[in-house]
């Protein structure tokens, strides 16, 4: 039955290739038949066939909120997709500790912070604090890792200064506020500072946060990026293996 053509996949409602998709959006036009028609036209421009406006309502004068379903005409070649991924094997805490003992034979120093105006600490704490997150201990509890969590709203300059002071093997930075892309200049500035100090080759620089992906991080000049659902062991595994790979031991 299910001989799917992975070079041409489409959304699935209840039958292969039915292309069914759900949308919702608001148009800045008064509620009425014309608003629904405008919604349909928009869907058609997106390549959606049989657009159905299943719900439309006035959302404050001059706005119409629309819920729609339709059939996507486009297909995607799934077989050709290659996503850059953090290229290391995830070990658990004990695995990481053993790895350090055997292959690095000294303490690994990791300095972390949420930088710029960003005041969100829960993400970086989840990775670094003793207690960790969701039952996974944080870096502070790892034998063989010296983890320094500088907290939030840390200026990039202070973070770099501290990393130099401690001879850090890795800087890890969290960015949670991403509205209007405020995180991009801030992350870029950090890399520039590190390069200016001539440190870029001597340490790993890693970013994380709910809207940070590995791909974006690499694009911005970081070694790796970690998104939602990351645990301490994901970062730790990457850091220790990458240190060995790069001969930073």
């Amino acid at each position, binding site marked *: *039955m299910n001989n799917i053509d992975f070079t041409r996949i489409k959304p699935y*409602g*209840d039958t292969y290739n039915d292309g069914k998709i759900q949308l*919702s959006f608001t148009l800045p036009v008064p509620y009425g038949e014309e608003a629904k028609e405008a919604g349909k036209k928009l869907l058609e421009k997106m390549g959606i066939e049989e657009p159905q406006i*299943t*719900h439309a309502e006035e959302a404050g004068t001059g706005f119409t909120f629309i*819920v729609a379903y339709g059939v996507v005409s486009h297909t995607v070649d799934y077989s050709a997709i290659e996503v850059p991924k953090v290229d290391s094997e995830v070990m658990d805490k004990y695995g990481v500790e053993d790895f350090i003992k055997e292959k690095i034979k000294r303490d690994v120093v990791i300095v972390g912070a949420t930088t710029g105006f960003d005041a969100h600490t829960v993400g970086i704490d989840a990775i670094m604090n003793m207690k960790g997150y969701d039952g996974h201990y944080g870096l502070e509890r790892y034998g063989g890792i010296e983890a320094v969590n500088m907290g939030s709203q840390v200026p990039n300059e202070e973070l770099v200064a501290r990393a130099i002071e401690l001879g850090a093997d890795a800087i890890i930075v969290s960015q949670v506020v991403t509205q209007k892309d405020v995180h991009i200049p801030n992350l870029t500035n950090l890399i520039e500072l590190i390069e200016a100090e001539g440190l870029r080759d001597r340490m790993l620089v890693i970013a994380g946060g709910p809207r940070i992906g590995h791909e974006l991080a690499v694009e911005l000049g970081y070694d790796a990026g970690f998104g939602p659902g990351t645990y301490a062991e994901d970062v730790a595994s990457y850091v220790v293996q990458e240190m060995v790979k790069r001969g930073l031991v």
Partner: protein
Amino acid sequence: MSKLGLDFKLVEEARQSARNIALDIQGLIDQHTSVTVERTVARLLGVDGVDPLDRPLPNVLVDKINSEGRLDLGIAYYLGNAMLHTGQEPQTIAEMVMKEELDLTRIPTHDFDEVKKKVLEVAQKTMVRIRKNRADREDFLRTLGEGPKPYLYVIVATGNIYEDVNQAKAAARQGADIIAVIRSTAQSLLDFVPYGPTTEGFGGTFATQENFRIMRSALDEVGQEVGRYIRLVNYASGLCMPEIAAMGALERLDVMLNDALYGILFRDINMKRTLVDQFFSRVINGYAGIIINTGEDNYLTTADAIEEAHTVLASQLINEQFALLAGLKEEQMGLGHAFEMNPKTENGFLLELAQAQMAREIFPNAPLKYMPPTKYMTGNIFKGHVQDALFNMVSIMTNQGIQLLGMLTEAIHTPFLQDRALAIENAKYIFNNMRDLGEEITFKENGIIQKRARQVLEDAHHMLKNIEVEGLMETIAQGKFAGVKRPVDGGKGLDGVVVKSDMYFNPFMDLMLGGASRE
């Protein structure tokens, strides 16, 4: 103890009225058989398959005899006689009839006791198979286990049994406990059961024995994978009620939609036909350990949930009595009700809570089937998802048994894979997060909730008293259920009802009526 302060004397009275109503009808039932009842007997004796025109052989057999006006003895007699005469099995006999190599009414008649003995021999094999299915189910439940109550019940309705299998497996993996394969539009009006695997249906997939088998084995497979027994549901209601029940018994279905009145009210099937058919179908379900689901929820999709709530209770009580007469145990009675209150109603949630709790207290051992909001669902899927959440909340607060999950797209299309996933997520979240809320709360003395429940009980009591006097058929003819009027001799299928002769013989009625538990 009643949380609602219900007057259980009134409940007992109402129940007694329902008993009298059912007993009154049982007289009529006992005097009649129908074409589908006889086709069921043929099936249970092993007749299956179709003729070159795709007519099922049970139909071929039964129609032939009925056209000669001689069905009053029951098909079993003719098959038994032919077995003695030809030395062949029923299936071969049916094929011979189809090929016109044999004319069942024109072969020599054997001694009636001999015939019965022969038939019972064959019938016993079927009984063994059904008992084995029942034992297998119990085994699975013991070894694999099942999800906590309320069971999560979802439907698949693609029209294509193989696509249904994909969806059903996905749903089981997400947490569904029960999968219902919705039937194709209007199958209930067919006076035969389609044959073989099918891939084209409208708004649902045809109920065929082969489709049952395919889905059963898929669910057994995924059940092993997820470590829970996954129950399978189909629909008996319609012009083939007992036949589909028999197919379910043979293929180890677990739940059957089966209501004493649904076909009359919602499918305009003739009253006598439905009443006769429901009885045998329930006898079969009872024996096979199948849970029935009644259709009181449908009343509220047509009539108003506040005004007509008492008709739901009255109908539940009648369904209960018909079920008891057919040998079903309380644990098999998935009596229906539904969350169909207009969401704009101030304190509507309280009224719903009253109704659900009332059903729970009046039918303490029944695995109540609770149906989701459908009528007031709209194209606004976000609002719909919250309506479904409230529905789930009432269920966990009142300890319902079977939760037919609401879909946020109810007003739009039959469920997409993702709609089902979201529905399961919704229910799991609420059932877990509010697990013991029902245990923890009590309702105010004489508050809105208690008063509402009492009022509904009184109205149902009153209605049943009236029906007891006027008779069930007359009441239906007057449009007192769901606002639908059905004349006694109107509707489809009356010509398939046959008055039994004194010598009428149906081996399964006696074999099964005791119920498996009593063996």
